[in-house]
């Protein structure tokens, strides 16, 4: 192997990498929390008695789960201008990430809601709670707690898949790397560094989200740490 690794030249691109890193964080945050909000709304809708909204949610969830994120990004960024909707690469990426994550989270949360026993809902009704109150106080908290682990996995996967928005020219971490490697030809060094960055981000996200879970869900905290 007659290739000398030269990491020095990467220092010139440090500002790009740092701004790419922040952009990756931004994309992940909006993707995770936007997707979570959308997903919970869809999951709740899919347990309502109305047929039409339920069918619409079903179609949306299946469409998101059975097509690749890359194609969704392409449809929003390249396809929508055909019908007169022109979006910047960043906006398209954000919309695609939120919609995509929403589909997955909806399916996860729905399974959590369905595992709540009917008798609990009936008990809440007999106490005179409105539907909204039942949902907020009785159904959702244990449902979300039950599916918190898959939600964390899905959120980390979403963070990793933000890398493919580089394909439409968003300068996130991967985008910055693609530009830097085409300008310096130090491809190996660059991808090596961002690979490490992503692995580190993966551990960071897992740790932060699990910690947040312990803060939010008192029951699993007690099970783990005893009463504090």
């Amino acid at each position, binding site marked *: 192997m007659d290739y000398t690794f030269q990491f020095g030249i990467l220092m010139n691109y440090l500002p790009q990498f740092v701004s790419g890193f922040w952009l990756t964080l931004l994309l992940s945050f909006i993707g995770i929390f936007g997707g979570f909000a959308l997903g919970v709304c869809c999951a709740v809708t899919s347990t309502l008695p109305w047929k039409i909204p339920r069918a619409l949610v079903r179609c949306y969830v299946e469409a998101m789960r059975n097509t*690749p994120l*890359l194609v969704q990004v392409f449809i929003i960024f390249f396809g929508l201008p055909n019908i007169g909707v022109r979006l910047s690469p960043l906006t398209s990426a954000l919309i695609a990430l939120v919609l995509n994550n929403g589909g997955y989270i909806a399916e996860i949360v729905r399974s959590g809601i369905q595992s709540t026993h009917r008798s609990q809902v009936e008990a809440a009704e007999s106490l005179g709670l409105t539907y909204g109150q039942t949902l907020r106080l009785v159904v959702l908290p244990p449902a979300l707690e039950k599916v918190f682990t898959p939600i964390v996995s899905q959120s980390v996967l979403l963070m990793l898949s933000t890398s493919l928005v580089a394909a439409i020219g968003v300068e996130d971490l991967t985008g910055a*790397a693609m530009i830097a490697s085409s300008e310096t030809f130090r491809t190996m060094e660059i991808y*090596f560094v961002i690979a490490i960055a992503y692995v580190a981000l993966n551990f960071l996200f897992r740790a932060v989200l699990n910690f947040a879970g312990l803060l939010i869900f008192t029951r699993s905290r007690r099970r783990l740490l005893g009463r504090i």
Partner: protein
Amino acid sequence: MRYFGLPEFLFIIRALIWTITLTIIAFFGGGIVGAALALMRISKSKLMQHVTSAYMQVIQGLPLLVLMFLCYYTPSLFGYQLSAITAAAIALTINTGAFLGAIWESALRAIPRPQWESADALALTPLKTLRYVIAPQAVKLALPSTVGFLVQIIKQTSLASIIGFVEITRAGQLVSNATFEPLKSFLAVAALYFILCFPLTQISLWLEGRIERRGSRA
């Protein structure tokens, strides 16, 4: 000026064979890697457990796109030039291996301890225990998630388009560049993915439901 018509659609459909080829390579390659990983994970050797755990953590924490770039460019350090399909296949195999390894490991671990012990009491060798007692039950448990992950692999092959391999996403891009009708092209691509993935998703759900209905007999 070309329009998005039947020939263009057929062009995308012809690329479907490459999406499927890539999926099959990744699934079987990843299956072999995953099976080896799962077995090493449940072995008693501490070293093997640590090595496999590190491998799985790192690969699962790496975006597939970055892995693909690494697989595409690394061989040129040694003077080899990989074709896009080889690089994509290797990256997908490495990635799939790590995820299937995790799925299968948890299925193997879900088989209760007494099964191992009673097989031991019947003087079965560990290999035979695995072959006749553990694996048949674990396969049943792992099947829904494995089929579910197959859907994931199909969707992930779309990333090969970024390193220039012509599967259906890339074919869609080419058609959209030629016709200036990206909406139709990419919707056609999305529809093809949907037709491939939706039945598998339903099968996975059905398998899952079947296990639940039968109760945890494992």
